[in-house]
C-alpha cells in the first residue's frame, strides 16, 4: 500500500492507504477525526468539507494520495487554544445547527467564504452554500450566523 503524508490540524501525519482511499476515509478511519462527516455519495451534501491548503474542499471527492504534502484543517482544528473560532461561536449564538451532522462542513465552508469575501450579503451567502445541504434549519439561522461571524471578524 502506498504511504501518504500530510499535515492535519498542524500535526504531521503519515499513513498507508489504498489508492482508492478518499481523504475523508483517511481522516475518519486512519486518524479517527470523525468530526468530518459523509452524508452522500455524489459530492453534493458538503458534510465532508475540510480545508486543503486553505481552500474548502469536499474530502469525499479527493483521494488521500492527492492530499499528499498538503496542509489540511478539519473541524477539530478550527478552535484555537480552547477558544471557538468566531464562526463556531456565531453558529452557537445564532442557533445555526440542530442535529449537528452537516455542521462541520457548513462551518468549514463558511469560513472559506469569509476568507474570500469578508462582507457577503445574504444572497451571496445563500449562493455560496449551494454545495452544503442542511435538512434541519431551513438555513435561516445558518445565514444569520455567517452574517454575524462576518461582522465579528471584520472587527
Amino acid at each position, binding site marked *: 500500500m502506498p504511504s501518504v503524508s500530510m499535515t492535519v490540524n498542524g500535526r504531521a501525519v503519515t499513513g498507508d492507504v489504498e489508492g482508492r482511499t478518499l481523504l475523508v476515509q483517511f481522516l475518519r478511519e486512519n486518524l479517527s477525526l470523525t468530526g468530518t462527516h459523509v452524508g452522500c*455519495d455524489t459530492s453534493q451534501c458538503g458534510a465532508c468539507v475540510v480545508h486543503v491548503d486553505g481552500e474548502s474542499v469536499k474530502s469525499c471527492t479527493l483521494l488521500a494520495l492527492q492530499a499528499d504534502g498538503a496542509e489540511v484543517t478539519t473541524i477539530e482544528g478550527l478552535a484555537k487554544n480552547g477558544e471557538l473560532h468566531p464562526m463556531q461561536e456565531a453558529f*452557537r449564538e445564532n442557533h445555526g445547527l440542530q*442535529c449537528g451532522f452537516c455542521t462541520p462542513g457548513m462551518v468549514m465552508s463558511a469560513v472559506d467564504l469569509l476568507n474570500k469575501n469578508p462582507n457577503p450579503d445574504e444572497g451571496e451567502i445563500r449562493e455560496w452554500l449551494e454545495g452544503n*445541504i442542511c*435538512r434541519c434549519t*431551513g438555513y*435561516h439561522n445558518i445565514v444569520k450566523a455567517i452574517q454575524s461571524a462576518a461582522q465579528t471578524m471584520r472587527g
Partner: protein
Amino acid sequence: MPDTGIGASVRRKEDFRFLTGQGRYTDDINRPGQLHAYFVRSPHAHARIKGIDRSKAESSPGVHAVFIGADMAADNVGSLPCGWVVTDRHGEPHKAPPHFPLARDKARYVGDHVAVVIAKTYAQAKEAGEQVQVDYEELPATVNVTAALASGAPQLHDEAPGNLCYDWVLGDEAEADAAFAKAAHVTKVDLINNRLIPNAMEPRAAIGEYDGGTDSYTLYSTSQNPHLLKLILCAFVLGLNENKLRVIAPDVGGGFGSKIFCYAEETVCTWAAKKVKAPVKWTGDRSEAFTSDAHGRDHVTHAQLAMDENGKFLGMKVDTTANMGAYLSSFSTSVPTYLYATLLAGQYTTPVIFANVKSVFTNTSPVDAYRGAGRPEATYVVERLVEVAAREMKLDPAEIRRRNFIQPDQFPYQTPVALQYDIGNYGQSMDKALEMIDYDGFPARKAASEAKGKLRGIGFSAYIEACGIAPSAVVGSLGAGVGLWESAQVRFNATGSVTIFTGSHSHGQGHETTFSQLVSQTLGVPIENVEIVHGDTGSIPMGMGTYGSRSLAVGGSAIARACDKIIEKSKKIAAHLMEASVEDVEFDNGTFRVAGTDKEKSIAEVAFTAYVPHNYPEDVEPGLDETAFYDPLNFTYPAGVHICEVEIDPATGVTEIVDWVAVDDFGKIINPMVVEGQVHGGIAQGVGQALLENCVYDGDSGQLLTGSYMDYCMPRADNLPSFRVGMTETACTHNPLGVKGCGEAGAIAAPAATINAITNALGILSMDMPATPEKVWRLANQHAQAAE
C-alpha cells in the same frame, strides 16, 4: 433564574460538541474486532428469487459469511411487524403480509434486501457482494396506487388480493350526502400529495454486537426511539428476552420520522453478530438511503366541500388512496388513517365529514411517517379546498376562513372526526399573520411586481395538528400495539448536581437544553448542574421516543412529574432538618423554608442529606431519585396561520418566495430560539415538497429515477427565504406544562400556503406539487395565451 429558565432563549448545551467535531454518531463508533456488512439488494422492482449462489462470494478475500433469507428462517427470525392494526370498513383487520429482513421468496422493490455479506472491511464486503449470484425471474411491477388497484395489476402478496391493504372509512356517509344535498355550492379538488424521501443528513447505520459470556446483545443504531426498537426486535423479530438486548442511539443526525422504524439492516446486524462472533457494522450510503429509508406522503385524493350561499361549510367528503410501498413499515397503516382523516376538520366547524381511505401495496420502498405524518396531507386537502372555495365563491381567503373558524368560546370542541380540541384561538393567529404580512398592502405590491413583468401571489394555510402523541387508551382503542406515554427519571447526585434520564430522544431538537431549562427552573438548580441522558436502553427507564411533536408535551411532562416527586420527598427531609412539620415547609427556587421563620435549607443540602442520612426522618427512604411515567390525557393541538407571498417570473417559471409569515400557537414555550428553529426547518421541508422534491419511479420498470441528490431536489440555501415567525399562545389545558409541541408545524402548514400563493399568482385554481419552474412556466404561459 430568568436567563436560563422557562421562556429564555438559552444557547444550546449540545452545540459545543457538534461545533468542534466531537459529536458521536453511530458511524463514529468502532468496536474492537468489528466486521462490516454490505447488503445485496434487488435491482428489480419485482422478481421471484429462484436461487442464490453465494459460493464465489464466500471465498472472496476477507469474507466471513454470506447470509440469505433462508438462514434467518432457520433461526426462526420473524417478520418486521407493523405495530398498528387498522380495521377496515367491513370490520376486518388490515392485510399484513410478512416482511422478512432478508427476502425469502420474492424481491418486491428496487433495494429490497436479498443477502448480506460480512467481511473484514467494507470494501471487501462490497466487492464480494457483487459475486453473489441471484437467479431472478423478473415479474411485472406496479408503482402507483391507481395502477396497482386496477384489475390485472401485478400482485405483490398472496395475502393481499388486488394489492389492497385496507379500505377504511371514518364518519357517516349518509349524513355527508345529506349535507351535500343542501349545499348552495360544492367545491371539488383532485390532489396528489407527492411522494417524498426524508433524507436526514446522517445516513442510517447500525452496529450489532454479541457477548457470549452473558448471552446478550448490544445494538448501536440511528434510532429516534431505542426502547421501541428494542421491544420490536426482541418480542417480534429475534425472539429474545428484552433484558438480553441493549439499544444505544447516540447522537443521531436528524430523523424526521425515517428513523422511528425497525429496519432490516439493524435486525440483520444484531442477528449476524452472534453468527460471526464479532461486532457487525453497517453504514448506509446515500444511495441506499434513497431506496431503503421509509418514504413519506404519496396520496391521491379527491375531496369535496359543501357550502351554503355565505361560504359556511356544511360538509366535506374525502376519498384518498395511499401508497404503502411493498411492505408495511412499523407504523405505516396509521399514517393515512388516524393521523390523517382525524384532522380533516382543520380549524373549522364543518359539521359533517366523511373520509374513505384505501391503502395499497406497490413495488416501491415502504412508506411511513415523515415529518407531520398524515397531518400535512390533511392540511393540504383542507387548505387547498378552502382556498379554491374562496376563489369560486369570490370571497377573500382570510374571510372565508374566519367565517368558519371554531370560536374561542366553543372549546373544548368535538370535531366530527373523533378528536376533541382542548383550546385554541384561530382568529387571533389570523389577525396577527395578516398584520405581519401587511395584507392590506398586497394589492400595491402585486401592482409593483406586475410593473416589472412579474406575477405576485399570496397564499394562506390555517393548519392544525394533533401532537403530543398520545393517550394510550385512545390509541389502543384505535389499533395501536403500544402505549404512547413517556418516562423520566430525575436523579439528584449526592453533591447537588442532577441527572435526568428521559425516554425521549433528541436528534436535533435540543432536548439537552430545553429539558435542562425546565429542570433548572423547577428544582432551582443552576442549568450547568443539570445533565440530560437519552438514547440508551441500558440506563434509561422504558420510554417511547421522539416523533409526533411529543417530546416536551409528553416527555417534558414526565420530567415535571418526576420533579414534583423530588420536591415532595425533599420537603420531608427538609422538614426534619429544620425541625418543622412538612405542612409548614415551602419550596421556592431551590430553597426550602419554614413559613414565618428564617430557617432554610437548599435543595443541594437536602440531596446530600438524602445520600448521607445521618440525621434523617425515620419514615423516609434514603436517596433522591424519582421516576415518573406520564400518559397524556389528550392529544395537543398546535395550530396557526402561515402566509406565503411569491413572485413568479413568467419568462423562466421560477418562483421566488419573497415573504413568509408564520404565526403559530404552541402553547407555553420554554426556549423561543429552539422553537423558531423548529419552525424554520419545518417550513423548509414543506417548501421543499411544494417547490422541489418529488420521488419518481419509472412506471414500467419500477426503477427509482430520483435516487441521488443529482435527481432528487433537496432545498438549498438559495431556494429559501428568511422566515418571519410570530407566536400566539393558548396554553394546553391538560398537561402540567401547558405546552403543545412545535416540531412538525412548518412541514404541515407550508405546502398548502405555497401552492395557494402560486395558484393565486397564476390566476388558476389548482396545480400539483412540486411547482417546478417548468410546470409553472407552462401554466403561466397557457394562462397568458388563454387570456389573449
